[in-house]
């Protein structure tokens, strides 16, 4: 009896599942999303239909057939050959892409090196050096890069002496000349047996890798330090050098010669290229320097002190303890700085360096029309580059996080 009484007491009353349609979170979320999607969809459709109407009204053609049409102009600077009037718009696109990538790659490499250098100077215990580095950073970060580009172009590279009075940067050898038409340099022409030197370089690199592993292993086991740097440098320089001389120096130099009013032969870079390169290097190095500084400062001071206390010298502590730990803090902003270097190289348009934007979005657009396609292709290129870089960055971040645990 008592048992049944107890049972009665514990009968569960199921709470009434109240399904309130208007106050249910899921219903609301679906409703809001539908609203957003409808609004955006309508807006896009509205723009697209307007565009179609306008294109028709103006008698403009669409489609990508124009890429196979010969372009009536030529690029003043190009890495692949092109004949004006024969080369197509597709080829102009490739020339533009290569020009953009070429100058961005150079600017990225050099600005990273300069930025690292200045970032370290910024932390120097020499007061004067630190202040000069700070002044550099503040001056170049706080002025528009466009003004800097134009300054280098008009204020420096256009004021250089004329062709006849070129400045010889190689000290009288005539292989590196600078004048107001650009930088002229000798260009190597490979001879018959040059491949032997190439093979030797590869062998030397492999040898260096093996040597470093061996030295690392030995140091781990015995604690003896092998002078890897000097030995590998010697390997890399002397091995190919000997082969190069033994095969009879198979490189001819195409030296620029003054003919008429200009230099002929060799390779040359136009002043607009030099100006843009200098401006990008100096501007982005100032950002880079701050990132390096912030990264190094983010490493706990105790790390350096511990390294010093186990007998590492200042330089070794920096390269073995501080920098490796600062890298995860430096690399993500550094890569976004690289990205903005690529983007800022599009300012070439202000000084006439034929990059993608200036060739494709300006000249081609004025000549051929096809606004939607040209704008779309140019933006797609930059988006492709940026997405590739952020994909690589994500991979890197994951690896760093794994190491950190």
């Amino acid at each position, binding site marked *: 009896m008592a048992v049944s009484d107890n049972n009665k007491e514990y009968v569960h009353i199921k709470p009434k599942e109240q399904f309130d349609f208007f106050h249910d979170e899921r219903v609301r*979320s679906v409703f809001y999303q539908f609203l957003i999607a409808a609004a955006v969809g309508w807006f896009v459709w509205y723009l697209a239909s307007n565009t179609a109407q306008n294109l028709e*009204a103006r008698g403009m053609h669409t489609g990508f057939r124009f890429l196979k049409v010969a372009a009536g102009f030529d690029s003043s600077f190009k890495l692949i050959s092109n004949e004006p009037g024969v080369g197509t718009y597709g080829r102009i696109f490739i020339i533009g892409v290569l020009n953009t990538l070429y100058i961005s790659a150079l600017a990225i490499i050099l600005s990273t090196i300069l930025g690292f250098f200045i970032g370290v100077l910024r932390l120097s215990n020499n007061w*004067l050096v630190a202040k000069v580095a700070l002044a550099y950073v503040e001056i170049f970060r706080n002025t*528009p890069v466009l003004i800097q580009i134009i300054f280098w172009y008009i204020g420096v590279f256009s004021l250089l002496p004329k062709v006849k009075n070129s400045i010889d940067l190689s000290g009288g050898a005539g292989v590196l000349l600078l004048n107001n038409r650009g930088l002229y340099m000798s260009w190597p022409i490979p001879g018959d047996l040059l491949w032997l030197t190439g093979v030797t370089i590869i062998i030397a690199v492999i040898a260096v890798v093996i040597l470093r592993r061996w030295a690392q292993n030995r140091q781990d086991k015995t604690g003896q330090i092998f002078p890897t740097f000097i030995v590998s440098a010697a390997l890399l320089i002397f091995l190919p050098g000997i082969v190069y001389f033994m095969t009879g120096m198979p490189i001819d130099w195409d030296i620029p010669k003054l003919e008429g009013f200009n230099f002929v032969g060799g390779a040359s870079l136009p002043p607009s290229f030099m100006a843009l390169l200098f401006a990008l290097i100096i501007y982005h190095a100032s950002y880079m320097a701050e990132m390096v500084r912030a990264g190094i400062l983010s490493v706990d001071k105790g790390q350096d002190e511990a390294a010093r206390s186990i007998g590492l010298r200042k330089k070794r502590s920096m390269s073995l303890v501080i920098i490796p730990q600062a890298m995860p803090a430096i690399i993500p902003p550094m890569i976004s700085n690289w990205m903005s270097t690529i983007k800022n190289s599009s300012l070439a348009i202000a000084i006439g360096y034929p990059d993608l934007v200036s060739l494709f979005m300006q000249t081609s657009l004025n000549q051929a029309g096809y606004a939607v396609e040209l704008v779309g292709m140019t933006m797609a290129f930059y988006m492709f580059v940026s997405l590739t870089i952020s994909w690589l960055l994500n991979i890197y971040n994951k690896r760093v996080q794994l190491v950190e645990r």
Partner: protein
Amino acid sequence: MAIIKAVKTPALPAPLSETSVIGWMKNNLFSSVFNGLLTIATLYIVYIAVKGLWTWGLVDAVWVAENRRECFSINPDGACWAGIFAWVDNIFYGRYPREELWRINLGILSLFIWMIPLWLPRVKAKISIGLTTVFLYPFLAGYLFSGGDKGIFMQIMLTAAIVCLAGNTIHATIGVFTGRSLPEFLSSLFGKKKIHEKTQRNIFLGIIALSFVLIYVWQMSWSLGGVSWTKWGGLFLTFVVSGIGIASALPGGIILALGRRSNLPVARVLSTSFIELFRSVPLITVLFMATTMFPLFMPEGFVLNKLVQVIIAVCLFNACYMAETVRGGLQTIPKGQFEGGHTIGLGYWQTMGLIIMPQALKRMIPNIVGNFISLLKDTTLVSIIGLFDVLTMLRAIGKDRTWLGLHLEPLVFGALLFFLLCFAMSKYSRHLEVKLSTNHNN
């Protein structure tokens, strides 16, 4: 035998080698041979650079001249600042009609009057002042700058802006002297008679309505001549474009960032792709897109002028950058803050507006100001697509007949101008960061 002194021995002063100038120099400049050499080398480089700039820019410079030839005849080695002085109106105001320049000055002055209360410590209701600056000032400035016929909407907004400006100023003055707000002060004017709160509010609203009507009638009596946007230029145009960009980037960025962090997949995907689209392309391509594609986007017969196209492009571009900054700030807020907000029964928007955003915005100040600085610098790009901004005006000096070939000095002047603006902004942000910091750890 130990000697015990009853009196504490005074501490010796630090040795001279630590405190004197020479000691400081030894520690900071000549701590080692290498450092000493480095110091001397740096000193030499600095000396060369500063001396070169000094003689070019100040000692040998020509300050008064009629044209560039005269500059050359006075001193061919120095800078020719006379050209800058001759063009200073053009640099600041572009081609704006010279007899109407007071309108720009008045517009800038009224912005200052409007915003000064934000810096005065005793003034209350700063948020409303800030909001009215963002929402009403543009109408006042817009009418002052462009003029022309006032439509009925413009008349109302203009009146509202003037009323608000007057109210703000009175409110701020009272605030500075008495530390009270305007409504409090008004009610205290009626003496000790206890008036019901509702009546107080009615009186206050009545005064506002009355002044609104009065100013509305007054503003109907005058109108300004129209100035086409094509006449806008110089630093003024740069400020207009970047000002609108700054004012709209923050709200736009907040919305996009919230969209990107939202639980709704559709909102998330759309905001993410929008942000990534604009962040991965250079600003100049966005500007070109604006000038070539926006006309195609518009329905037939509807023409956006170039300035509006550029402003829209700049706003979209900067909203996306700001969105990433805001997202970064939101990520620093611990999850407990969201949960805490929900626990005390706040909804999504209340949690965001009352708990998350105030904390996040405070942490984001350096980055937000950094964004503003880069926006100001990026505004020079509008010169490429043919607006007469400050850079265009600076480059035009060298093409002017009397100052033909004067290229370098205008650029240096422009660089200096931007440097002062941007440097001041970054220093101020640093100050604000310290002032607003509630972190008691350090």
